[in-house]
């Protein structure tokens, strides 16, 4: 009797999550792999004849440029958020008195709709926005500057949107670090810079790597920021994928592009596991 009850409990707790994850995560992902080797019919349907042309097609200069642009944008975004985010997280952990408030202020943008936050920058940068208005009034410029719809605008949008994703793991790992090591290094005569380089950075490496991955991976796929802030001037992998599914109706090619994006993410996550040897969530939550 006890055994049966035990089994009911096991099925009740294990089955729903297993079913959901298999059906809505595993199967769709495997299905993308399958579709990526199929052909597109003339009317935009999928023709079930296997081909590798969806992958070979990516070697065209047009797509190579999209890949390179995406990687450059994602890389600069990661670098900038790290360079600005690390000192910020470091100084913020020193404030003990308002810790709850600081945590809330760091968390809030993390959960605010990134579309709305992007919109805030569109308002600021637009031709009749605040910056142009101020510059015109003070007489610094005669004609309003065209700041939107450029790589610069996309970069600002990306850095702004991804910043909380970098700061949160950094803050957590710096906060958890045992400060006694820093004291020890100082007592032994190490300079501030040397202490930072040889003690603080290695000890907070899990946070640094987690932050970099949390920023790099999504920034390859955030298609709506190039859409809204780059106009038609900036095209990243995310835009290309969205385009295949929503406009060009070339699902097999879109699927193949998705597979490439998944591979980039997987490689980065493997790097993380190799370097840190811990699961990602420990740093993020």
């Amino acid at each position: 009797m006890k055994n049966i009850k035990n089994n009911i409990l096991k099925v009740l707790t294990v089955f729903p999550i297993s079913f959901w994850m298999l059906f809505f995560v595993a199967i769709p992902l495997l299905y993308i792999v399958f579709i990526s080797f199929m052909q597109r019919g003339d009317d935009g349907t999928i023709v079930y004849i296997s081909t590798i042309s969806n992958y070979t097609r990516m070697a065209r200069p047009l797509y190579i440029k999209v890949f390179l642009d995406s990687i450059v944008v994602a890389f600069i975004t990661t670098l900038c958020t790290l360079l600005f985010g690390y000192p910020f997280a470091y100084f913020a952990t020193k404030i003990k008195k308002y810790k709850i408030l600081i945590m809330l202020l760091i968390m809030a943008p993390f959960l605010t709709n990134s579309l709305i936050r992007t919109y805030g920058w569109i308002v600021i940068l637009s031709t009749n926005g605040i910056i142009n208005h101020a510059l015109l009034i003070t007489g610094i410029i005669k004609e309003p500057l065209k700041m939107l719809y450029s790589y610069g605008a996309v970069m600002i949008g990306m850095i702004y949107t991804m910043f909380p994703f970098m700061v949160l793991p950094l803050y957590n790992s710096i906060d958890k670090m045992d400060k006694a090591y820093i004291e020890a290094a100082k007592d032994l005569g190490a300079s501030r810079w040397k202490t930072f380089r040889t003690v603080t950075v290695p000890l907070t490496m899990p946070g640094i790597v987690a932050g970099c991955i949390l920023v790099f991976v999504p920034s390859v796929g955030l298609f709506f920021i190039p859409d809204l802030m780059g106009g038609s001037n900036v095209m990243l992998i995310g835009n290309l994928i969205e385009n295949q599914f929503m406009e060009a109706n070339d699902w097999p090619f879109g699927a193949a592009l998705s597979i490439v994006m998944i591979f980039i993410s997987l490689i980065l996550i493997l790097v993380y596991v190799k370097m840190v040897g811990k699961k990602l969530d420990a740093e993020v939550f």
Partner: protein
Amino acid sequence: MDSKLSKGLERTYIFCIFAFLYVPIAIIIMYSFNAAKSNVVFSGFTLDWYTKLFSDDDVITALVNSLTIATFSTAISAVIGTLGAIGLKRHNFKGKSVISLLVYIPIVIPEIIMGVSLLILFSTLQIDFGILTLVLAHTTFCTPFVLINVKSRLAGFDLSIEEAAMDLGASKFTVFRTITLPMIFPAVVSGAMLAFALSLDDIIINIFLSGPESTTLPIKIFSMLKFGLSPEINALCTIMLVTTFVVLILSQGIKLRREK
């Protein structure tokens, strides 16, 4: 370096970054009350844009859709996530490592991939895009957040209490109902609130999986933005921002209280 000076510089830096993070949000909120249509000159306080917004049937429909989707996907993911956390923590079964890995996938892969994969799944199964597909998709990316939240609570759980109850003759169900559930409940609630906020704010999945009848608030904002800037967008964004902040403060409050 003088420690007072360096402390001052540090505070200034923190302040500048917070300004960078919050000024764009503050501008949206401020100009939603601006009497003039412009996003530059503030010419007086008004609630006109809000009244205008609430007399727009499309916006009301989008609001109702968003809340419906968020409510259902939060409820489902709270149940599946909580049960799953217990199952993965307490039981051994075939393929456990696969399921544990799959739980992390919706968190770590780019959201667009989730959108694309579910788009292909639903259209292959010939399910019409609408509220149902959005609830299923949102549940998929919300469940892992609830599960991880509850799992970390279970990890710090003193098993001897449950054993003591069982030694005293309580059945497994009684133990679950009277001990396990009350202990993990704060984690369930804060996980659920996180799920609610995530569902309400999602844009990428919405773009891929919503149908003509299931426009959500973020989709509405997105399409309004494509037509150009207007004060109604400011008002709509402000409403969403306030909702998110309230949910966040509540969920953090619960979390902090439980950690004390």
